[in-house]
Structure formats: structure tokens, C-alpha cells
């Protein structure tokens, strides 16, 4: 257990211009979080577990088409619609800006999934099963969920906890393995940075389309993007106009009022699809 936990506010920025739709994040998530194997029949039943998924959209008419990719994961909304509807507080907001799910408390009303505009909550319709040879591959830091329980992206909270222990108890620099001076063993954004804590999908992304940081972190690029996005919300709340043509920053389904901690950067299309009829 760590003692001096600081208040973080974790956030992710998804740069759609960099996303190639390679699904490395999906695989990384699957491996990290003990997600059952999505078989063909799970997909056909529309019950596949994809804590992060790449949605593919086609733009334009054949033959002038482009594939558009958007990774969608739990947005860890500030005003999460899933939280107030759970009768047993199985999902709630912790003080690190994470929307967390307590599997043991879940009774399976499925109201949270109904009320999630991003459909990123996954119900265990069947008892999850792995092939025998995968038994030893399960991540010991992550609960194996049972049937009848709702689950979702946690921003790899187990990595956060391990990082905290690494810094405060073991005092090891994550990348170099050097000892951290005792005075510096604080759980602030300087220590809990890239290399020490990042979700599996961010780590796996080959194009750095996913960026992850504490929103209090003043050194990284994430804070500036979040400030711009929060400025947009403020402008809209005061009835102002946001010039969407000249900014890349947006949040998914902002009109629902969820205030996600996940920000998307629009694609910068050098060669837009020619939409004129031929």
C-alpha cells in the first residue's frame, strides 16, 4: 500500500491523424486485462469484449473511398452517465479522475451500459473461458471477471498501482532502474510519467496516436490540449461560438454533457475525398 497518494487527473489524447487502424491497442488491451478470447460466435452474437475498439467508417462513394478509423474506449467522463444510474455504486468516480468499476459489487442491472453513449461497457453474458494453454498467461494484477458482471476500460489502473508501489515503496526509477532519492519519492506527475505508468494501449501504439498523461503535467503536450478543450466547453456554456473549422480538438458526443477525459484530434486530410458526383 502506498500512503501519500496525490490527486491526479488522468487524461488521454487520441490523434486520429496518426491512427492507422492497426489494432495493436486492441491486442495489447486484450492481453493486459485478462479479457476472454473473442471468438467468432461472440462477434456474431454482438457480445465481443473490446475495452478499446477501432471503429472503421467509409467516407465517400466507390471508387472514391477512404477508410476512417477511430479508437473508442471508455472516455472516463467527468459527468459519467453510467455512474448515477447504478443502484449499488458498482461504478463510481475516484479522485484520480478515473471512472472505476467494482466487479464484486455489480449485480447486473445493465443500466450503466444502457446509459453509456459510447457503448464501451461490456457485460459477461457467458462465463469467461480461456484455452488451457492460456491459463498461465493471465495477468495476476487483474481480476478475472465472472459472468453477470459489467466490465470496462480502467485506464489500466493496475499499472498505476504498480507504478505507485515502484516509486514510493521500492524507490526505483522505472526506465533506468536507479534508486530515487527518498525526498523525491512522491506520487506526483513527475514520477508517475511515461515509462512508469501508461495504459497498455498507449504503450503498444506504434504511431503514438494515443498519448496519455496527468492533466496537471505541465511539461507534456497533453495539458495544452486539455486546456483548449476545457476552454471550448466553457465558451459553449457561456453561449459563445467555437470555430470548429480551425481547431483539431474535440470530444466525442460533447452535446450529451459527459465531459470526457479523452480528447480526439481531428484528422488533417491532405487529400480529402472528392465528393463531387461523377
Amino acid at each position: 500500500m502506498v500512503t501519500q497518494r496525490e490527486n491526479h487527473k488522468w487524461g488521454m489524447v487520441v490523434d486520429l491523424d496518426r491512427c492507422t487502424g492497426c489494432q495493436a491497442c486492441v491486442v495489447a488491451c486484450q492481453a493486459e486485462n485478462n479479457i476472454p478470447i473473442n471468438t467468432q460466435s461472440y462477434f456474431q452474437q454482438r457480445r465481443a469484449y473490446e475495452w478499446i475498439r477501432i471503429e472503421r467508417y467509409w467516407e465517400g462513394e466507390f471508387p472514391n473511398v477512404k477508410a476512417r478509423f477511430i479508437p473508442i474506449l471508455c472516455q472516463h467522463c467527468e459527468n459519467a452517465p453510467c455512474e448515477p444510474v447504478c443502484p449499488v455504486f458498482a461504478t463510481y468516480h475516484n479522485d484520480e479522475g478515473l471512472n472505476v468499476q467494482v466487479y464484486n459489487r455489480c449485480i447486473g442491472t445493465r443500466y450503466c451500459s444502457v446509459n453509456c453513449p459510447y457503448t464501451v461497457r461490456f457485460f459477461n453474458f457467458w462465463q469467461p473461458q480461456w484455452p488451457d494453454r492460456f491459463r498461465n498467461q493471465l495477468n495476476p494484477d487483474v481480476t478475472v471477471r465472472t459472468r453477470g458482471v459489467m466490465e470496462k476500460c480502467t485506464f489500466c489502473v493496475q499499472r498505476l498501482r504498480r507504478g505507485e508501489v515502484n516509486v514510493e515503496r521500492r524507490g526505483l526509477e522505472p526506465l533506468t532502474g536507479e534508486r530515487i532519492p527518498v525526498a523525491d519519492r512522491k506520487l506526483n506527475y513527475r514520477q508517475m510519467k511515461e515509462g512508469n505508468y501508461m495504459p497498455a494501449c498507449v504503450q503498444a501504439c506504434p504511431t503514438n496516436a494515443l498519448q496519455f498523461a496527468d492533466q496537471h503535467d505541465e511539461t507534456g503536450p497533453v495539458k495544452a490540449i486539455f486546456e483548449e478543450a476545457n476552454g471550448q466547453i466553457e465558451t459553449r456554456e457561456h453561449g459563445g461560438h467555437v470555430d470548429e473549422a480551425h481547431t483539431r480538438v474535440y470530444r466525442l458526443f460533447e452535446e450529451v454533457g459527459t465531459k470526457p477525459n479523452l480528447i480526439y484530434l481531428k484528422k488533417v486530410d491532405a487529400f480529402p475525398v472528392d465528393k463531387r458526383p461523377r
Partner: protein
Amino acid sequence: MQEGTPLQSRQVNRELLVSILNSPKWFWMVISVLGLIVLIAMSAAGVLINQGFGVTGLNRPVMWGFFITNFVFWIGISHAGVMLSAILRLSKAEWRRPATRAAEILTVFSLLTAMLMPLIHTGRPWRTVYWIYTLPFVPYDYARGIWPNVRTPLVWDPSAVYTYLTSSILFVLVALIPDFAVLRDRTTGLSHRIYGMLAMGWQGNPRQWKLQIIAGVLLSALILPVFVSVHSIVSWDFGMAVSVKSWHSTIFAPYFVVGAVHSGVSAVALVLIVLRYIYGWQNYIRHEHIDALGRLLVVVATGWFYFFVMEVVFGFYGREADEIAVRNLQFMVSPWNIWMIIFVGITYFLPVSIWLSRSCRRNLWIMSVACISVNIGMWLERFLIIVPGLARKQLLTFDWYTYRPSLVEWLIVIGTFAMVSMLMVTIAKVVPLIPLYDIKEGEILRTEIKIGRVTVPATFRED
């Protein structure tokens, strides 16, 4: 001016207790057939609990399906009891008398059945202890400061439904006391003692009558706010869901309440027609009663239709792409559009056109067709609100899907209908489904005497 011949008190007792004191041949046959259906449904629920929710047709966008539809439907049916007993009692509608008891008992049984649905819906019923039964003697995690989340409609909902269930049971029992006393005097052995206990020492003296009437009127008045709130709160399960475009509407509460009265009163009319047929209660459930219910239903149905049209109009008025997507599914895409046409036809146009004609209102066969069609239609209404709304929740078209109920869900839903019917048939063997004393009171009130040329009631009601 009421129709029919005057009835003697002795005759009322004899004819209305026929369901209890005589045992018809068909009784055990009906009970066993219905019980078999209930057993099949229970084994289907057992399969579901054993295997998990995979055996249903639910999927990621459509997490709520047949069970929630059925829950809302049975809660809706339960609204007939208060509508007929409390509201018509307070508004002194004389024709309510034979309908009240059946309506109240239908209320209690449909509420009990409705409360089963969320239990099955969670897939692990033993866990619902943490949701509904948050009483001190249940191991709820108070020690760690974990309380039920009062912000969720899923906590308001059981609170409202349980309040309604408690007050309905109280309502039925208070109204039953004089009839239990009649039964106590006409039975022997064990049933004599049980009825004696239930009659609570009823002697029929003026003080007891006064207390019983006061209790009835008080309960009628107190149950009214519950009546309005129950289905409002059930509708907020949907109305409060900000993310489901077609549910998130302020019109849902009155829309659902009126719809509940529509289906509930139709169900009671159907029950009355069946009772009249099987027990030969032609003298009690007369054409005028069914006629009056039909006239009431014309008003209720038209009120419901107004809300239905408004809900759709509001949807289109916003012209938001996500709302239009839901409406497109409901009105343009097969098979949803076919169900939609059927639903509007059998919930409004068919029954109301029947109820508008006096001769149709007095033809019991046509009336029962109208009542059945209303109830099928209202079931479809809930289904067509819940499932298309979820299937087109938001604009992420990648996640759009449909819903195909599985055999397990069908069996459980059919089982609930069999269960309510079975409970009604069983209770008809135990308590009189038409209140004896209420009929007698009506007989006294309708006695008329002729003074000179005018005919005036022989008794005046002092209230």
C-alpha cells in the same frame, strides 16, 4: 337509474359465493394447465440462471429486452386497481361496484409478477439483495459507508413499486373484511378458523361499518399519489437515461401513466367478462358496467394517443440526426415499421372504433376482442420504445444492432401471463371476486319509491 332486477341479500350471498363454496370440474384442469406453463417458464429461468445471460437474445447495444418490457407491462396492468377502486370510489361512480375487487386483486398479482422480472433480468437473483432489500437485517455493507445509490431511478423504482404493493394489499384486505365474515359464517373446520382470523372479529355492527368505510376512503385518497408516482417513476427508468436519445424525454411520465390506465382498465374489463361467463354472474356484471368501462376507455385511449403522437412529434421536431435514426428504424425499417403499424392499429384505432358504438360496447365478444387487442398493443408499445431506442442509441453506426428474443425469453414472458391467470383462478376459490357488501350497498342505494308522480331514491347518501 340502473338496469337489471333488484337483488335480495340472500341471493347475492348465494350467487357470489358460488366460486368458493362449489368446486367446478374445470378448476383443477385449468390450474394444472396454467401451472404446467408456469413450471416450463420456471425451468427456462433456471436455464438462464445456470447458463448466464448468453441464452437470451440480448447483446451489447440492446442490453434491455423482453424482461424489462414485461416488467413495465405488468406494472401498467396494476394501475387498474386504483383507477377503478380509489378514483371511481372518490368520484362516486355507482357502476364501479362489481369491478373493484377483481381490479384490486389483479393489481396485487400483476405487481408481484412484475417484481419477478427485474430479479430474472439481473441473471443472478441472489445479488438483488444488495439492490432492493436494503433493510438493516440484510448484510448490506453499511460498515464501510456503502449505501444504495439514491440518484438512480433503479432505487426510486422499487421504492415506489413496493409502496404501491403494500398499499394495494392493505386496500384489498380492508375491503375484504366484511366478506371474510360472511365466509366465516358459511364454512366449517380449518377454513372457518382461517376466515375467522382474517375477518378480525367482524360483527357487522354500525361502529365497525363506520371504521371500515373511513379506512376505505382514507386509503383511496392516500393511494392516489402512489398511483400517479409509480408509473411515472417506472417511466423515469427510461426518461432519465441521457444517452438514449429517444428515451430522454420529459413527456414519458404522463405518457406511461395514461398508457398504464389504458391497458389496466382493458384487462379488468376482460377479467369481468370472463368471470361473468364462467360463474354466471349475469345479474352482477351487467352490460351497463362493461358499457361504462368502454366509455371510460374511449377517453383514456384518446389521452394516451395524444401523448403517443406528441412523443413522436417531439422526436421529429428536434431534427437531431440521432433521434431521426431511431424514428427511421421505428417507422421505416422492416419489421419494426410493421410492428409499429400493428401496434397503433390495435391499441387505438381498432378498440376505440369498437367502443364508440353502443351496440359493440354491449356485445361481450366484441368487447373482449377489443380488450385483448389493447393489451397486446400496449405490450408492443413498451417493446417498441425500449428496443429501437437501444438499437440506435447514438450516432456511432458501428455499434448499431438489433434484437432477436430467444426461446428462453419467450417462455418466461408467456409464463408470467400464465402465472397471473393461475393466481386469479386460485384466488377466486378463496375470496369472492365481486364484493358482496358493496353490491348490497348498491342495492340499497338504488331502491326507489314513488311519491306522487316523481320517483326518488329511497335512501340519501349523507356524504
